[in-house]
C-alpha cells in the first residue's frame, strides 16, 4: 500500500478552493496527510475548523471519502468504520481519524483513548493549533503556558497537555509528532503509521495565523522556530521506544518564537521579556533534556 516512504506526494486529494484562512497550518497539514495516505483512504473528521472550511454542503474539498459526525467522536466513528470493514471482509483501507487539539486533548480524549485501548487499526491525526480556533480562540488543554486567548486574557496559567506521550502510554505501536514546515518528514510519518497494524497517533503542530497573531506568509517559519527553540519537539516512538528525534544543533532562545506572535504579546513589557518568558525557556530546556534534542 505504501510505495516509498520518502517520496513527497502531491495528489490534490484535499482540493484547493476550501475556505481556510490564508496561511492556515491545518489546511496545509490536512493536504499533506491526505496526499501521503492516498486514494484508498477514509477520513473521519471531527467538528472544528477543518470540518467547517472543507465540508460545507454541497461543495466539500475531499476527493477521498469523508465522514463527519460530531466534535468528540471522530476516533469512535473511525473505530466503527474499521470494524465494519473487518466484519464485511472489505479492505485493506487506510482509516484516518482527524481532529483539532480541542477535540483531541479535551472533549474527544475519552473516545480516542478507547480507540487506542481497543487496538483499532486507525491512524489518529491531531492538528494542534493550541486553542479552540473555530469558535474564536478560546483556551484548550493544549494551549501552552503564557498564551493569551479570549478566555485567558491575562495569559494561560496552565501547562500544555502532552498528548503524544499520553498516547504512547496507551502502549500503541506508533506515535509521532511533526510540523507543517517539513513536507517530507510529515508525509513519511503518515506513511510509516499507515504501514503499521493497530492504533497510531500523529500530532502535527499547525499554526493558526488568526489565532496566533502572525502574518499568513510565515506559517512555515513559525513551525521552524517552534523546533529550533525546542518548544515543539519532533520525534517518533515505535513500540514504546523513541526511534527518532529531530535534533536541534543550534538552539535558539524561545523569545525568537514568541516575539513573532500576537498571542504572546503580554509576555513582553515594552519589548522586555517578563518572568514568564524565562518560565517558557525552562519548558524548552526541559524538552531538550527529556527528548535529547
Amino acid at each position: 500500500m505504501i510505495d516509498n516512504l520518502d517520496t513527497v506526494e502531491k495528489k490534490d486529494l484535499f482540493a484547493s478552493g476550501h475556505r481556510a484562512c490564508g496561511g492556515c497550518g491545518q489546511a496545509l497539514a490536512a493536504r499533506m496527510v491526505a496526499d501521503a495516505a492516498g486514494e484508498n483512504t477514509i477520513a473521519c473528521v471531527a467538528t472544528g475548523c477543518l470540518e467547517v472550511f472543507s465540508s460545507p454542503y454541497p461543495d466539500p474539498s475531499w476527493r477521498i471519502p469523508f465522514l463527519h459526525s460530531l466534535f468528540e467522536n471522530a476516533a469512535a466513528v473511525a473505530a466503527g468504520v474499521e470494524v465494519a470493514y473487518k466484519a464485511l471482509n472489505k479492505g485493506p483501507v487506510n482509516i484516518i481519524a482527524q481532529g483539532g487539539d480541542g477535540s483531541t486533548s479535551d472533549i474527544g480524549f475519552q473516545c480516542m483513548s478507547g480507540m487506542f485501548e481497543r487496538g483499532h487499526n486507525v491512524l489518529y491525526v491531531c492538528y494542534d493549533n493550541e486553542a479552540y480556533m473555530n469558535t474564536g480562540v478560546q483556551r484548550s488543554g493544549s494551549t501552552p503556558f503564557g498564551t493569551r486567548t479570549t478566555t485567558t486574557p491575562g495569559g494561560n496559567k496552565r501547562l500544555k497537555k502532552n498528548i503524544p506521550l499520553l498516547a504512547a502510554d496507551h502502549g500503541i505501536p506508533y506515535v509521532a509528532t511533526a510540523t507543517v514546515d517539513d513536507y517530507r518528514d510529515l508525509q513519511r510519518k503518515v506513511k510509516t503509521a499507515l504501514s503499521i497494524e493497530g492504533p497510531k497517533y500523529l500530532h502535527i503542530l499547525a499554526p493558526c495565523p488568526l489565532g496566533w497573531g502572525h502574518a499568513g506568509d510565515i506559517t512555515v517559519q513559525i513551525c521552524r522556530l517552534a523546533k529550533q527553540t525546542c518548544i515543539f519537539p519532533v520525534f517518533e516512538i515505535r513500540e514504546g521506544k523513541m526511534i527518532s528525534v529531530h535534533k536541534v544543533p543550534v538552539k535558539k532562545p524561545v523569545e525568537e518564537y514568541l516575539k513573532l506572535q500576537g498571542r504572546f504579546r503580554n509576555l513582553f513589557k515594552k519589548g522586555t521579556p517578563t518572568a514568564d518568558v524565562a518560565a517558557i525557556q525552562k519548558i524548552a530546556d526541559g524538552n531538550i533534556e527529556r527528548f535529547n534534542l
Partner: protein
Amino acid sequence: MLKQIEGSQAVADVVALCRPNVIAAYPITPQTHIVEDLAEIVSEGRLKAEFVNVESEFAAASVVLGASAAGARTYTATTSQGMLLMNEVIYCIAGMRLPIVLTCANRAIAAPLNIWNDHQDSMSVRDAGWIQLHAEDNQEAADLHIQAYKIAEQLSLPVMVCMDGFILTHAYEPVDIPDQKQVDDFLPPFKPTHIVDPRWPRGIGLYADPRFYMEAKYIQHRALEKSEETIKRVSSDFSLAFGRESGGLFKTYKLKEADIVIVSMGSIVGSIKDLIDRFEAEGKKVGLLQICSFRPFPREQIYEALKDKTNIVVVEKAISLGRGGILASDVRWSFPKGEKIPRRISSFIAGLGGRNISLDDLRYMVEKVEREPVELEFLGLRQEIIQEKDL
C-alpha cells in the same frame, strides 16, 4: 421454537438471527443481559460479527454510526443515563439517515438515581428523528427487532425498540424464537445506499448552512410521517410470514363497544387488558388503544379509531415536567380543535421510577374518569410523604 426464556435472552437471540455485522454496547442495568447474551453468541461463533466493548454509551452509538456509514448492519442497546449520554449521537444518526437498530430497555433517569422502569429515557429522544416502537411483551419485543431492521433499511431511518426494563427484560416468558431460515426469508441482506468507500468517494455528514438545513429537516420529518405505511406493511408481512400479530402502529382491545377508552403503551397494557375483562364481567364497557409506534405518532389513524369515543384516559410512564403527560398531549392533539362532540381526554402519570401500577390503581383511574375529566393526576402518589413545604 417456543422457549421459556428471559426477555433479554429472547432479544439477543432474535438480534443474532438478524445477522448484524457490528455490535457495540456499554453495560448499564437493565440492558446488560441483552449485550452479555450477544457477546456469548458471538464468542461461541453462532453469529459472525464484530462485538466492540466500548468505553461509554456515547462511544457505542458513535461506533455503530461509523460502522453503519461504512455499510454494516449494526446493533446497540442502552437505557436511562446511557440514552442521555448518547443523545448527541442519537440525533446525528437520525440526521445522517443511518438504519441503526437500538434496544431501549426503558428505565427512569436521575436525579434521584433510580434503576427501575419508566419511559423517561426514550421520551428524552422522542424528537430526534428515530422511529420508536414499544413492545407489549417479550414476544413482541423479539418480533419488533426483526421488523425494525426491515423498516430501518427500507427507509434509511434508525429504529428504537422500547421494552420495559426489568418488567420485560428480566421476565421469563415463553417466546417463540424463529429459525434462521424464517428470518433470512423475511429480512434480506442489508444493501446500503450511501456509504464511505474509496471506490466511490463521497462526503457523509457535511454541514448545511441556512440555505439547506431546513430542507434536510423537512425531508427527515416527511420520511418519519411516511414511515407509518411501512411500519404497517412490515407488521402485516410479518404476521403472514410468522403467523402472529406483532407491531404495527397500534392495537386495540374491546374498543368497539367501549364507553371508556384507555390509551397506553408498553408492558402495562397486559394489566389493562385484565382489568377490561373484569369490568366486562361487571357490565362496564372499557376498551384499550395500545400504541406501538410512538414515533411516528399515527395521529390520523388514532383519530379514526377514537373519533366516536367521548371518554378517553391516557396513562403513561413519563412526564414533561412543567407541562404534563407527553402521550396525553399527543393524543389530545390527534383530535381537531373546536369539535362539536363533548370529548374528555384525561391524563394520568403512573409507574415513574418503577412504582408498581396495581389493578386497583387502574380501576380507581377508570372509575374517576367515569365521574369527571382529569387534567393531570399522578396515579398511586403517596401524598403522606409529601410535605406542604416541599410544594
